Every structure is written in structure tokens, then in C-alpha cells.
């Protein structure tokens, strides 16, 4: 009974994904319209894009932008969030800044960045970072407020110093918050990078999708989306889940 159950839990995601694809296929056949290509057509288009090397090129560029802006936003956001969480006065002073940043529409910051810095790579990266930064700050600030003061005092009493305290006392406590903001952040950054590319870059996934939209090439749009989903799953399985496990090993 147990082995049957565990086999089912393993099969569950496979089953549900298959169901999704079957539904898609049935809908495509029944509706028989150009705006909903069947999964097989999308697969063909995906293979063609891979063979021409176009998909890898644009996906690579988008992933590079994603990685750079992700790490910049996480690094800056963690540092600022930690500072605001620990120093009440700094927080009282900068709180309104964070709220403003948090609520400015992504589109506005992107367009302003392009106007101020020109249609260059730096502007694109900067726009993404600015959009992600306040979310990281808010999450990490919450974590910094909940640090265990007893352990901080312990570190002080044993003269740990700043670096050791940060590495061994503070960061392990912030870890769940960092992971949470990494996950939500990745999702947000994907979406924003594409808009940034659509508005002011001549390569990357966003640019390509914009191009397909103008050509009304729905099959290619969906093929790119599938490649996208695969990459996200890979990041989750290869990077995020092992990190989760590693941080939980003492529990």
C-alpha cells in the first residue's frame, strides 16, 4: 500500500501535466483556430527555433540580464533591508522611500530609465533592479526585525566581530527570508526583463515575442513560452531546491 501511494505521489505531477497537454490538444482540435496552435505544432516550432540557434541566442541574453539584475537586487536589497531592520531611525527616515519605490508602476521606472540613461544595457539592468529592489528590502527588513537578540548578544559577549556575526549568526536566520524573496523575485524579474526588452532592446526574449506579435506568429510565441517554463523548472530543481535542503539540514 505504501509503495503504491508513493508511486502515485511521484506520478501526480506527470499526470497533471499530461492532462494539461491533452486538454490543450483537444481544445486546439475542437476550436480549429489559428490563435490556438496544437502542442505538436508548438513543439515543431520549438525544435526549429533550437536548430536555427535563434532561441538559444535570445534566451541566453535574457538569462544573462536576469542573472545580473537578480544578483544586484538581492545583494543591495539584503544589505539595505538588514540596515533598515536593525536601525529604527534609518527605517523611520527611509520608510516612505521604500513605499514609493514599491508602488511606482514598473512601466514608469522602465520608461524613465530609458529616457534618462538612453536605450542602453545599463538602463535595462537598472530598470529591472529598481523594480525588484523594494520587494527584497521589505522581506529582508522583516527578517532583520525578527533576529534572535539572545544570539546577537552571545556573539557580542564572545567578541565575534562583524564578519563572523554576519556569516554565522545573522545570515542563517535571514536565510528563509532570502529564499522567499529569491523565489518571488525570480518570478517578478522574468516578467519585468521581458517588458524592458520589449520597450528598448533589440535582442532577448521580450524583443522576440514582440516581433512575433507583430508577425502574428502565435506558434512561436508559445514555443518560446514553453522554453521559458522549462528553464524556470530547471532553476527550481537544480538551484533552489538543493539550497532549501542544505539550509534545513540542521532541523
Amino acid at each position: 500500500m505504501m509503495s503504491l501511494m508513493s508511486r502515485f505521489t511521484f506520478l501526480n505531477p506527470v499526470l497533471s501535466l499530461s492532462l494539461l497537454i491533452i486538454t490543450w490538444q483537444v481544445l486546439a482540435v475542437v476550436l480549429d483556430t489559428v490563435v490556438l496552435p496544437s502542442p505538436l505544432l508548438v513543439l515543431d516550432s520549438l525544435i526549429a527555433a533550437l536548430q536555427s540557434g535563434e532561441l538559444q541566442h535570445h534566451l541566453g541574453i535574457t538569462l544573462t540580464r536576469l542573472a545580473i539584475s537578480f544578483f544586484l537586487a538581492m545583494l543591495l536589497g539584503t544589505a539595505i533591508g538588514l540596515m533598515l531592520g536593525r536601525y529604527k531611525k534609518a527605517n523611520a527616515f527611509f520608510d516612505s522611500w521604500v513605499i514609493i519605490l514599491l508602488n511606482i508602476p514598473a512601466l514608469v521606472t522602465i520608461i524613465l530609465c530609458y529616457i534618462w540613461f538612453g536605450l542602453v544595457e545599463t538602463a535595462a539592468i537598472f530598470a529591472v533592479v529598481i523594480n525588484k529592489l523594494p520587494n527584497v528590502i521589505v522581506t529582508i527588513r522583516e527578517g532583520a526585525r525578527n533576529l534572535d537578540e539572545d544570539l546577537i548578544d552571545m556573539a557580542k559577549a564572545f567578541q565575534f566581530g562583524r564578519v563572523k556575526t554576519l556569516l554565522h549568526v545573522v545570515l542563517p536566520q535571514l536565510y528563509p527570508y532570502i529564499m522567499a524573496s529569491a523565489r518571488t523575485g525570480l518570478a517578478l524579474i522574468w516578467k519585468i526583463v521581458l517588458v524592458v526588452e520589449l520597450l528598448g532592446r533589440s535582442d532577448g526574449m521580450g524583443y522576440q515575442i514582440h516581433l512575433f506579435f507583430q508577425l502574428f506568429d502565435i506558434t512561436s510565441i508559445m514555443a518560446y513560452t514553453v522554453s521559458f517554463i522549462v528553464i524556470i523548472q530547471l532553476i527550481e530543481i537544480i538551484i533552489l531546491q538543493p539550497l532549501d535542503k542544505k539550509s534545513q539540514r540542521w532541523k
Partner: protein
Amino acid sequence: MNKLSIDIKNKAFVTADNKVVNVITNLKLELSNNELVCIIGPSGCGKTSLLNIISGLDTDFTGSIKLSPSGTDYTSSYVFQNPRLLPWRTVLENIQLTVDKDNVDTTKITHLLQRLGLENSLHSYPQHLSLGMQRRVSLARGFYKESDVLLLDEPFVSLDPPTARKARELLIDLWKQQARNILFVTHDLDEAVKLADRLLFISKSPSHVISEITVNLTRDERTPANISQFKRLLKNNNPEIAHLM
């Protein structure tokens, strides 16, 4: 000769409704020649505040703490009331972290943990240990780091009596091996008489030293019977501290 002179003129804090509360006023004490001193006082008398000042956790006070001959530059280690181990580090790592990486002597730590009966828990995470074991790790950590004064804040409270008795014996054992000044805060007079060279009785807050008593029993003589005899004499001869017993 390593004399630590503690002279706290005033320690106050401001409450939420802006009242100034004096916790400690004119509290003077000295520790020298690696002695073990127990501080006894009613609860809420600022004993933990005193230890926090000596350990450098609290710098918001008037007065001075000096080590002669080297001045204000002294080192302390601290065994807190709760063990305060880092849950994400193993027992061994928790102790290693208290000194610089280059000075870590794992053999010495292992030996120390062995004496405390923790030789099988070197690589365990604190959560997998009982409270008594965590307390022993905390004790080991306090002793491993070399310091001019070791501060202990009721480290054996809420342990069952046999475990607490064993822990006290281990403390004396370690202290004989690695002599140093120890300041031990407790509200348990039996424990204090069992452990201390000297007893310091502290008043209610704002606290100061009311009475200082040398325990003139060798450690072998400190049987339960002798301890109660000592306490009886103490009570009769020192009416000013009777209310603290």
C-alpha cells in the same frame, strides 16, 4: 596576579512611560587570584544587568571596570541562563566559533567535551540534545575561550537536581584545571555555598553589595550537612541578610 575591579556608580534605564529606574548604584566588587565568587540577591535586583555590563554587552552606565595591571582591556566569556547555541552549527562548531580560526584547537575542545560527557555529540546539532546537554555545551564554550573572567548567569536553573549536582561538580573540575576568575550569579544559597570562595549578597534594586562572606570550608567538607550548618551560622551572625536566605 590578575585583579578585576568593578565599580559601577550608576546603571539606570528609562521605562516606556519616561520614568528613570536605577537598577544599580555604587556597586563595588573585586575578583582576584582566580577565585570563584557567587552573587546572591533577590530576583529583579539587576544581577543580569551587572553581568551584561561586565561582559561589555551593556555600555550605558557610569563607573569603571578595570583589570590590573593591564587596564580596561580585559576579556570575558559568558555562560548565559539559556544555552544560546547557534542551532545551525554543530556542538563542535559552536565552540570553535568563539576563537579566531587560526587558534582553534579541536583536540582541546574534544577533550573538554569528553570531560562533560558529550564525546558522542560533537557533530550533533543543538536541537537534538536535551536541555542539560545544551547547558553543558554552553559551559564548555565559556571555558574553552580563554578569558580574564568567566561570567555565569544561573546556568543550572531548571535542571533536575541530580543533573544540576553533576553540572556543578563539572564546573569545579574545569575551574581547577583551568583556573580563572569566575563570577557566578544564583538565587540558590545551597548552590552558592557549595561552589564559592566568597559570597556577595546584593540588595534589592537599586542594588549594591550588602555583605561579603568568605566560605571557610574546603571543597571536600561541603557536604549537605555542613552546608546547612554554614547557612544556619550565616543567618544567626548576619541578620542584615537573613531576608535573602
